[in-house]
């Protein structure tokens, strides 16, 4: 039986309350909008990419705590990383929350992002956690909008182009 007691941890609640890198970059090179129409999570991501490096990333929008904390923690983690490293994290994060990656037993680079592992027990909330990561992937690949619902549902379809 799903229990989310492990999910609403201090760190997630803190990022929800005080989101890091919140706002829009004035000098963004890449932008994307992520929307889950069914639940109303809606975020905008702006990135400043120079060569292979993600120099800056910010997000804004309206969403639930899981989505907002996921976005906030994502921005702190991918800032300063290469595009390839970021894409690898997108895949690992997705695999973790859909239960394909056991972070306790398998190698990964997720670090403190493992606080979201509990989402795997709450299928209806997986898309909340994964939306910022889908949006990051979309921004890096110059897609204007994305969603984790319908065709882009992480439970149904793999992220394209990875």
């Amino acid at each position, binding site marked *: 039986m799903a229990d*989310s007691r492990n999910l*609403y941890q201090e760190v997630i609640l803190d990022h929800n309350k005080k989101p890091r890198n919140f706002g829009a970059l004035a000098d963004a090179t890449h932008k994307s909008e992520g929307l889950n129409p*069914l639940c109303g999570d*809606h975020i905008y991501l702006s990135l400043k990419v120079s060569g292979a490096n993600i120099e800056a990333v910010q997000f804004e929008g309206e969403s639930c*705590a899981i989505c907002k904390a996921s976005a906030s923690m994502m921005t702190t983690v991918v800032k300063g990383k290469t595009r390839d490293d970021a894409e690898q994290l997108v895949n690992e994060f997705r695999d973790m929350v859909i239960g394909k990656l056991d972070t306790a037993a398998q190698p990964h680079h997720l670090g403190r992002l493992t606080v979201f592992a509990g989402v795997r027990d709450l299928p209806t909330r997986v898309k909340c956690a994964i939306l910022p990561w889908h949006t990051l992937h979309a921004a890096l690949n110059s897609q204007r909008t994305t969603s984790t619902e319908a065709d882009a549902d992480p439970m149904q379809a793999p992220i394209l182009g990875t």
Partner: protein
Amino acid sequence: MSSPASRNLAASLDVARIRQDFPILDLKVNSKPLTFLDNAASSQMPKQVMDRWLKYQTTQHANIHRAVHYLSETATAEYEAARRRLQKFINAREEREVIFTSGTTESINLVAHGWGRKFLKQGDEIILTTLEHHSNIVPWQMVAEEAGAKIRVVPIFDNGELDFVAYEKLFNPRTKVTCFTHVSNALGTINPVREMVATARKHGVVTLVDGAQAAPHLPVDVQAIDCDFYAFSGHKLCGPTGIGILYGKAALLEAIQPFKGGGDMILSVTFEKTTYAPIPAKFEAGTPPIAAAITLGAAVDYLTGVGMDRIAAHETDLLGYATETVGVLPGVRIIGTAEKKAAVLSFVVDGVHPHDVGTLLNEDGVAIRTGHHCAQPVMQRFKVPATSRASFAFYNTLAEVDALVASIRRVQKVFG
């Protein structure tokens, strides 16, 4: 605040006894007793109704309206008897005015596509309301686009009540049909359907009432409402999924086009011409959900046994108590405060997204619905992306309302 009179009437409802009929209510969720407050989405089934399904499959099943053998005749008789049970439940004039469908959505689509495609012309107008569920919007948009017809929308006030004056003003000679919900699924508002139908009738306009949220909670009398069509679902009435009803006045049903063709809906078929069967068979192509229809018949018998008046009175008490106790929580806002409401309490908790509310309530075994409730125009009207919705049934208790309130307070503490 509910009236003392209704509390007295509700007191005659032995909820503790009734709950023994619903095995699922004994479930534990996350080691807590289940508090099921998502009845507007689907209600639970009592043993007596489950037993009816079992009896049908065990002793009465065969295909209907076809063979001459014992089981086919028995199944046919039971299926048609179920139709009469539903006829009585909504006080339809004739049993042939009761069509079995897969649910409210199919019922509305049957009218939109069957009636709309045949009678709607370029420039005609359809009146809908802001309160509609998507299932009473999208089929009409599909048909309107095809015909070149226009959709006009009745606004609502801040308390979730329909602007009746605005509704009356929308009528003009181009208005052909008006479709509105009896009870709002997102807010609980009970619409003045008799008055709304009377207005439409004055203008010679066809009326469809979406009764999905009304049939489980109020006594419904389609002759008193005088609507042309009335749609509702079985699974919100303690019946099974996959079965619902379209009531229609016989003359209109006879005039409209069936939108599903197949077996059991014809008189004769040649490759040159098919003659349709009379109603209701015209609309029940193929093998219908026989077991579900018969089981729904048992469900409305069960509800009638409990008493729809008593159900309404008890739910009024639950809603009154919930409105009082949730309404006084600081930082909680109730969305939908119409004077006349059915058992729906939509609310938002300041600073907490409804999906987080829903997930945290689930930890306490409290099942509510969170989201836009397939009524995005209502959410847009109140400028919220979603709400949390507790919806009650006659088997719910005041103690379960207390569990809801305690759980909301815990949410506020977690997010504090």
